[in-house]
């Protein structure tokens, strides 16, 4: 158990009791601060350096081949605490050459930025590493509709991410090589 020790307070001297020297010191401090360099960032012209783990606006990304990574598994929709995400799943036609082995992709993907709380659960839960909260932090609009990011907007914001997640390529490779009986 914590032991309580009572400390005697040092009695104040007369000058201390008038508080005037302390006030003078305080004034000195604030005065000297006036001439120190300023740290203000001139925001719209100067932009801050965004740390890597910054959680900005959620975006959808494409893989280095420019294919969409999202497969509309709807886990983000499920995990989203404010229910900001709304996905309409869709299937990818078999004959698309650049997207062989991709069977499912979102038909529509909407994130309501009026609801989004930037918690990052969607990024965390995404099994395909398709959704990222990137460095975009200023999102504004004049109407409520404008604040709902649709699929095109999300991909525009997200761009491509140079990672090593070549899932579809691997699948294609495996099929071309075939099963070695």
């Amino acid at each position, binding site marked *: 158990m914590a032991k309580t020790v009572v400390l005697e307070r040092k009695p104040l001297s007369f000058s201390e009791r008038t508080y005037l020297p302390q006030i003078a010191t305080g004034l000195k401090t604030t005065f000297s*601060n006036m001439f120190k360099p300023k740290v203000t960032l001139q925001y719209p012209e100067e932009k801050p350096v965004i740390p890597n783990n910054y959680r900005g606006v959620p975006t959808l990304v494409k893989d280095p081949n420019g294919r969409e990574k999202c497969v509309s598994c709807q886990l983000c929709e499920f995990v989203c605490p404010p229910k900001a995400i709304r996905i309409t799943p869709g299937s990818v036609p078999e004959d698309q050459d650049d997207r062989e082995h991709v069977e499912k992709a979102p038909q529509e993907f909407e994130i309501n930025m009026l609801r989004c709380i930037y918690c990052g659960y969607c990024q965390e839960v995404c099994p395909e590493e398709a959704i990222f909260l990137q460095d975009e932090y200023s999102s504004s609009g004049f109407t409520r509709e404008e604040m709902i990011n649709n699929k095109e907007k999300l991909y525009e914001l997200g761009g491509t991410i140079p990672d090593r997640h070549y899932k579809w390529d691997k699948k294609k490779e495996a099929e071309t090589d075939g099963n070695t009986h």
Partner: protein
Amino acid sequence: MMEWMPQGLWFEVCLKVFFAFMMVGAVMTMAGYSVLAERKVSAWMQGRVGPNRTVLPFVEYIPIFGPLLKKLGMFQPLADGLKFLFKEEIVPGHVNKFYYYLAPLIALVPALTTMTVLPFGQMYWNDGTVSTLALADLEVGILFVFAVSSLGVYGIALAGWSSNSKYSFLGGIRSSAQMISYELAMGLSLLPVFLWVCAPGSSESGLSLSAIANSQSGGAWLFLVQPLSALIFLIALFAETNRLPFDMPESETDLVGGFHTEYGSFKFGIFFVAEYAHIVIGSAIFTVIFLGGWHFLPFIEDPWPANWIGSLLGVGWFLAKTIFLIFFFIWVRWTLPRFRYDQVMHLGWSKLLPLALVNLIVYLLIVTVIDQNAAANL
């Protein structure tokens, strides 16, 4: 005196009105720029830049000068004022409308009224006569100042009551209590000054502000003679103007906005201006009483010539001192934390009041002794 001017009562009145507008304009301008100063100084002290965006159209294209003005935020007070004017007018539903609208006026008017008796320089006429520059150089100027400036508290008390809000009400109450507490110490602290200035046999009235200022010409400034008085007066001045560390009525941390919680747009703007007008007037009065008014440095005769140039330099010097005091007000605000309400009361009643009394008695004795000696020498 004013032989070169056309004569006539109406002309007199018009002239006075003209000067009064000039004064109001000057004070209001200073109040406005005090706001800017407050924002700038606080920014600097906190490592920030402060307002540096507002600029009039075209002005920013003037080379060097334009950007500098912009950087200093010289047009910010204009923008602030316009903002107050154009903001949506919101009146809470449960207020007493009449007093609610009256309160900001009552707060502003005393501040502006005080300035009528404020001397701010000397005019050296060509005929060698010297007259004080003031709208009305009253014999009992200081009394007028006390009497009128204390009325400002009614504005605050009224605002607090008419808002029908507990925060406002508490702010109003505190303001009244604080005003009463410090008014006493303030008055008492000035009595030695009058004693000192009113030399026996002198025809000068010790209650005239210009006389007090002139008494410091070439001699010691009164704050050197009576430092304790100056200190008590200064502290009381902070309290009277509701400045930190005495801004009990506003006290945004515990009372949201104090007396002006329910005020917005231009009505709030008036309160705002009134506060700074009080600061400006207070600084000017302190300058007149303790810092030698428009006179140069202690123990040095005014170096400027006794003509209109000297008059202007004197006024400028007076303004410089006032502006420094305004800066001091701001400086203190961003240095010291707010007192607790009980501490404010404690300081006022049990520290400043006894101190002022002791100060008075001591000076009574000293002045008596000096007077006796002077009488003996006569």
